[in-house]
């Protein structure tokens, strides 16, 4: 199992282009799974696949954790204990800017990975930096939102609903912050070491993480802010 | 009567359980688990619950005992020293055996599923008991570590003592003024959680006069082991007499008395109150009166080590 350094998707496309009917490139009857992906009887998968797969499993577990906080919000969304309701605390314009920033950061993250695939250090770093910047914008806006609410006396200690709100949104913000720290570390590693195999594996994981955070945010945005402001 | 409906339902399912079987099972299971226990029910709900318990046990034993015997027979017959038994070193599949092996648990569980379905509906604690007599209302508040019983129709209250008229259904509204507890009178059946800020409904009935006991069945702190309460079932006339005697003397359950009750205390003796505000329970259940305070940590040098206040009277 040689490592050409190309991701499986690019290698697969190449295979399809060169041998669309799988005449010469698979053992036995052509229905055998591809070597190196760990399916069937072809032996252990390639390290890149193992790392990515394991990280996917971790992401699934993280999404389960988020779903518990979503569930808490669903249960407690009306437990306002005489305090403010969701509709009173949602500031849609600011949330719209946060969302745009985060979605854009996902886009720049994807661009940085395209640059990594092309083994271009400069553009990888540029787009990673932009990703980090947009993530920072998101976090700062969110912190500003919390600060605003707190200065109006709207704190998680006020009611169950606010606890669930701050908890869910805050958990996501903590993840984004941790992702930002990770991003800074990755930028430093790429700077110092370049595109070694394990650095690329870590960039794969980082990309998965960042995109997953985006998906979770879309859930939060919809369930907490949009639906919350309607009720 | 719930019990007859229950027996009827079970009879429809092909399982008529006479009271004799209940008694036999009791004898087989030993004395201490019988008199005073859940298999010695004193009311229709308890009887229904106990019948289902016995039924389910019998159904399962019918499968479990042959399986255990089969396992030991199999191990004995094919022990290595028994060279007469056929050695089939490659035999590892048989469609017929698989079919049986999947069917036995499936059919058993379908049967049990039927018992579950019917039993849960029949014996839902929230379901009122059918009866000619009007139910007696009792409101129950779990405190640390005592039970408060309020009789709103009679405007009296008791601590750690539940008196009920025999043969009359009693409808309980149950809440807690501190942590989770469970209201449980073993011989009357159906325990249910007492939760702060919520009201659980339960209907029980004692068929005959007698002395029973109840307890909390959810651990609630240092005084939990003494959170039992006396249960007396009296004939209807005696019950009225008892109500009158309670109304005749004793303190009033006013705000101060209730605040005193909310403090943590262990081994609280039985006491009665001659008057109580019928809105008290509602105020407790909706937390207009906030829940009881917990332990009061004392000196600062004990910070980090919880001191349990309370103690016996």
């Amino acid at each position, binding site marked *: 199992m040689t490592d050409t350094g190309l991701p499986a998707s690019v290698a697969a496309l190449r295979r399809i282009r060169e041998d669309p009917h799988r005449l010469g490139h698979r053992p036995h009857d052509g229905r055998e799974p591809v070597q190196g992906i760990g399916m069937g009887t072809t032996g252990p998968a390639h390290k890149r696949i193992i790392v990515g797969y394991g990280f996917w499993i971790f992401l699934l577990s993280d999404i389960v954790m988020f779903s518990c906080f979503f569930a808490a919000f669903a249960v407690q969304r009306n437990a306002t204990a005489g305090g403010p309701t969701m509709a009173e605390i949602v500031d849609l314009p600011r949330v719209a800017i946060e969302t745009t920033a985060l979605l854009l950061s996902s886009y720049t993250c994807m661009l940085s990975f395209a640059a990594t695939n092309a083994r271009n250090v400069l553009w990888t770093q540029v787009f990673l930096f932009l990703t980090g910047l947009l993530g920072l914008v998101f976090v700062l806006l969110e912190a500003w939102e919390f600060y605003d609410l707190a200065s109006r006396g709207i704190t*998680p200690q006020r009611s169950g609903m606010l606890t669930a709100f701050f908890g869910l949104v805050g958990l996501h913000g903590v993840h984004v912050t941790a992702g930002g720290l990770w991003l800074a570390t990755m930028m430093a590693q790429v700077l110092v070491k370049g595109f070694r195999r394990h650095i690329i594996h870590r960039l794969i994981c980082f990309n998965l993480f960042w995109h997953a955070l985006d998906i979770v945010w879309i859930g939060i945005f919809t369930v907490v802010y949009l639906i919350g402001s309607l009720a | 009567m719930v019990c007859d409906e229950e027996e009827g339902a079970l009879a429809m399912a092909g399982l008529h359980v006479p009271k004799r079987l209940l008694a036999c099972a009791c004898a087989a299971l030993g004395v201490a688990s019988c008199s005073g226990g859940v298999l010695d029910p004193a009311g229709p709900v308890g009887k229904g619950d106990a019948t289902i318990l016995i039924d389910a046990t019998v159904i399962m034993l019918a499968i479990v005992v042959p399986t255990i015997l089969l396992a030991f027979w199999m191990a004995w017959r094919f*022990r290595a020293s028994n060279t007469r038994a056929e050695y089939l070193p490659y035999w590892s599949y*048989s469609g017929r055996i698989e079919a049986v092996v999947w069917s036995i648990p499936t059919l058993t569980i379908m049967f049990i599923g039927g018992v579950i379905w019917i039993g*849960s509906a029949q014996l839902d604690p929230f379901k009122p008991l059918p009866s000619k007599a009007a139910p007696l209302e009792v409101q129950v508040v779990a405190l640390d570590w005592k039970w408060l019983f309020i009789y709103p129709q009679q405007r009296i209250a008791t601590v750690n003592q539940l008196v009920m008229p025999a043969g009359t259904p009693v409808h309980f509204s149950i809440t807690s003024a501190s942590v*989770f507890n469970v209201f449980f009178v073993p011989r009357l059946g159906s325990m249910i959680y007492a939760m702060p800020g919520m009201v659980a409904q339960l209907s029980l009935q004692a068929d005959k006069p007698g002395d029973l006991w109840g307890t909390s069945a959810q651990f609630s702190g240092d005084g939990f082991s003494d959170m039992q309460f006396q249960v007396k079932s009296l004939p209807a006339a005696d019950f009225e007499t008892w109500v009158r005697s309670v109304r005749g003397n004793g303190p009033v359950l006013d705000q101060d008395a209730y605040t005193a009750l909310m403090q943590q205390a262990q081994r609280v003796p039985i006491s009665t109150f001659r008057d109580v505000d019928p809105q008290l329970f509602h105020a407790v259940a909706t937390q207009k009166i906030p*829940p009881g305070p917990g332990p009061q940590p004392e000196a600062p040098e004990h910070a980090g080590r919880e001191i349990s206040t309370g103690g016996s009277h």
Partner: protein
Amino acid sequence: MFGKLSLSAIPWSQPIPLITSFIIILILLGVLVLVTVKGWWPYLWREWITSVDHKRIGVMYCLLGVVMLIRGFADAIMMRSQQALAIDAPGYLPPEHYNQVFSAHGTIMILFGAMPLVLGLMNFVVPLQLGVRDVAFPTFNSVGFWLTASAALLVNVSLFVGEFARTGWLPYPPLSETTYSPGVGVDYYLWAVQISGIGTLITGINIVTTVLKMRCHGMSYLRMPIFCWTALASCLLIVAAFPILTATLAMLTLDRYLGWHYFTNTAGGNPMMFVNLVWAWGHPEVYILVLPAFGVFSEIFPTFSGKPLFGYRSMVVATLFICIVSMMVWLHHFFTMGAGAAVNTFFGISSSIIAVGTGVKIYNWIFTMYGGRVRFEVPMLWSMGFIFTFIIGGLTGVLLAVPPADFLTHNSMFLVAHFHNVIIGAVVFAIFAALEYWFPKAFGFRLDGRWGTAAFWFAFVGFWVTFAPLYMLGLGGMTRRLQHINFPEWAPWLYVSAAGVVILILGVISQVLELVLSIRNRDRLRDITGDPWDGRSLEWSTPSPPPFFNFAVMPNVEGEEAYWGIKLRAIETQQLSPEPNYQPIEMPLDSPVGFYTAFFSFVFGFAMIWYIWWLAIAALVAAFAGFVVFAWRDEHEFEVSADEVARADRARREARTAILARLSQQGAAP
């Protein structure tokens, strides 16, 4: 400066924890001094503490589990004796202490005794059975183990500094909120369980990835040993369920530390939500424990019957069936919370449905024995004991799954007897069977079967004498967690139960004696061939103990029961397969990052418990710095030369050729 911590945190006025802590500290110091004096630190550091070898990590997990089982058992002795002595009397443990004892007992037994043992077994066995050299993420594996170990240390520190939770092993609010539990006890519980939960999740991810993406050539999914299937199912459950625990405990932590309102009594908190969430974890947790236990028996029955497992595919289906349905039954832990007939019915039926999967497994084990030549060595004794004990435990479980029956027995001693019945009958018996079964593989010598047999009989009889009376007590109306008993009529059962504990103590002593005496006589008990039980799966093709790289050449598997086919062909042809072409191998480098991370997790947990904020932040920063330093290394693997591989494998082939000659004389081929 030190937060809430002060000298008054030490239990000066309570002789039992004080003296116990003193003795434990003495023992620990003694061990440390011994290791230092004998100069074992370099060896321990190099070969064990920084090892990323799954076999070493598996052994360390099992060692941790066994030590904590003994601690949990000590708690159990205290509980049974207190209840026997405190009938219309105060007993010797005041409520403040007794409540910690039963909370610690449950927490330790499940999370620090059974879990590490099960994780350790999976860690040790799964890569060997799959024919690969290590798990998917060996360094992460080390991190996971050391996190669990540091969490166990945290729990034990609570004996000496502060107190443990007094809420039961699942800290239901509102009792566990600061209003009703203002001390540090619940905080100890929260941080310890949280840290160990992360460790467990790491192992779960590791094994799922290993089983699904790292099997040797020719080993398709349906050629894997059943133990690997159950390990997969158990670890899928870990990945699905442990995040729920993490979230729930995090919410309780936020409530306690920051005054939030997830589960408080007032201001919109919802204590029922805790009960739902924690049991949505709690029920899969017991299946996480029991599925590998089933897997152990699925290995032992075929091996000791001399024939393949009956109905392999059925077993796979049943395993996955149990895995999935176990996520849908959690409400049966609180039927009495008043969810109503419809909800109770759904969960009652789904809980009963799990019995279908389990029943199929039991019948398949029984039919594995059909047509076999059953050898009653120690692992098989535990298996027969399991069949008897677990079936009855399952019976009482189905009883409890019927809501009206549960309305009489919820939270009673009947429930206590039931869950001990299934956990001890399945998980503990499986652990002892597995330890006996795989001990030769791990250490190169067998355990002394006579003491093992004695340990089994003491455990089996002791279990029934201890727990059968508890069923009676539950039916008599006795609820659980009572510090003293106000009903003298329950005394006879309590005395019988306490007597049963004495028998169990004899069992523990026998087990320890077995280990000690076997180590002393290890030369006589040496496992020369690597296959002491006439095994059928790939781990028995390696020497005992295996070289650190497991297999010189990764096997090429051609059917179910990979090793059995290889063995039969060798016996038939009277020769081993031809010597392979040895290639150099890449193995992962050892790393101290696991130990380092865990050390700072322990410091972080301790600091958070005692509100020492500066220390907590410092520990977090140090842990992160450690990770970055570790991530900066350039070399992850080292190469094992073809010569070294060849040398190890030729020694193995020599030993195998020797038994081949012996087998050909005895004519052992069927």
